[in-house]
């Protein structure tokens, strides 16, 4: 049953194309339908997330958003921005080794990853990109929460380690420079963002912890994996952290990053899985 669903005829005078019958955003409803979300709290959380992202004017910057709502691979695989069951829509395909639950998706840390089918070279740019992830597990190691890199003369990166060995948060979205920040707890919401060719930013929850000048052009030309890194065509650096949200898209300003954190935190809190 649709969220707040009731009869709605084609002759309705409602003119806001993004609002469907009963006040549910049409993009939220499309996701709810595709993912088979029947729980009213989850439906409401999705609707609020979509409207919050639209209100903050960051919805259109999203290429792929994975809310990991529901408790199955089927409900977890859909891209909120384009909930179509196809590679072109950046729907996730999971390898063996994942455990899906109402709090998120947990890879086994040894062999599990998910292919987003999003290639940074074709869908993003080296001067305008972001990635985010919400971790619910505190572990340290040579884990990449998501990313890819391509070796072609130089090595081109789109890499994201929320807490690597040595207790640092590392980002890399270009062909050089891996700025880091001290991080002793991998739980929380992480964002790396680049809105110009010369600077990259990293955020943990609502704090900007990396702000560093970078140089070089180019970005990975391999699909981004979640739960591991796509190392020039092969999955590697598997993580064992439960993931409750992830996104890929254009770069976000500091204000947009703050609004994004607020929206995602509200979403996780509504679902009683915030950390």
């Amino acid at each position, binding site marked *: 049953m649709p969220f707040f669903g009731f009869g709605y005829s084609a002759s309705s005078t409602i003119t806001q194309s993004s609002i469907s019958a009963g006040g549910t955003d049409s993009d939220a409803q499309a996701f709810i339908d595709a993912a088979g979300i029947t729980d009213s709290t989850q439906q409401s959380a999705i609707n609020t997330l979509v409207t919050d992202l639209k209100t903050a004017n960051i919805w259109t910057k999203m290429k792929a958003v994975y809310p990991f709502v529901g408790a199955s691979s089927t409900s977890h695989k859909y891209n909120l921005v384009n909930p179509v069951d196809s590679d072109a829509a950046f729907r996730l395909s999971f390898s*063996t080794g994942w455990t899906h639950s109402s709090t998120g998706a947990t890879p086994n840390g040894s062999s599990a990853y998910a292919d987003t089918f999003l290639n940074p070279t074709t869908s993003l740019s080296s001067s305008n990109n972001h990635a985010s992830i919400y971790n619910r597990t505190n572990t340290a190691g040579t884990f990449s929460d998501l990313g890819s890199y391509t070796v072609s003369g130089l090595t081109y990166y789109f890499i994201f380690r929320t807490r690597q060995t040595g207790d640092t948060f590392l980002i890399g979205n270009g062909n050089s420079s891996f700025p880091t920040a001290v991080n002793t707890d991998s739980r929380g919401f992480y964002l790396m963002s680049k809105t110009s060719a010369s600077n990259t930013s990293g955020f943990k929850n609502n704090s900007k912890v990396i702000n560093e000048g970078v140089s070089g052009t180019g970005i990975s030309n391999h699909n981004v994996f979640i739960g591991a890194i796509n*190392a020039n065509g092969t999955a590697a650096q598997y993580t064992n952290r439960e993931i409750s949200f992830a996104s890929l898209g254009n770069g976000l300003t500091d204000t947009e990053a703050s609004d994004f954190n607020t929206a995602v935190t509200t979403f996780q809190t509504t679902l009683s899985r915030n950390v």
Partner: protein
Amino acid sequence: MIQGRVVIQEVAQQLEGTFIDSDTFFHFVQDINGEWFLILSAQDEIDVAKTEWAYLLDLPLEDYVAPPSPPFPPIP
């Protein structure tokens, strides 16, 4: 210690990337000794049991030791 099922290389190569349902595909990894492992979650086992590859579940579970991580940044 994580556990998985050891298969011969030909099986790993044949099944790698094959979907067991509409969402999940087989992925095999090599351990520190070069043996090919299939590491399934409990949910995967339920799904595999419904397929023509259910025979894989009859293989004994063995401890998996990952090989060392490659250097980072990688050397072109």
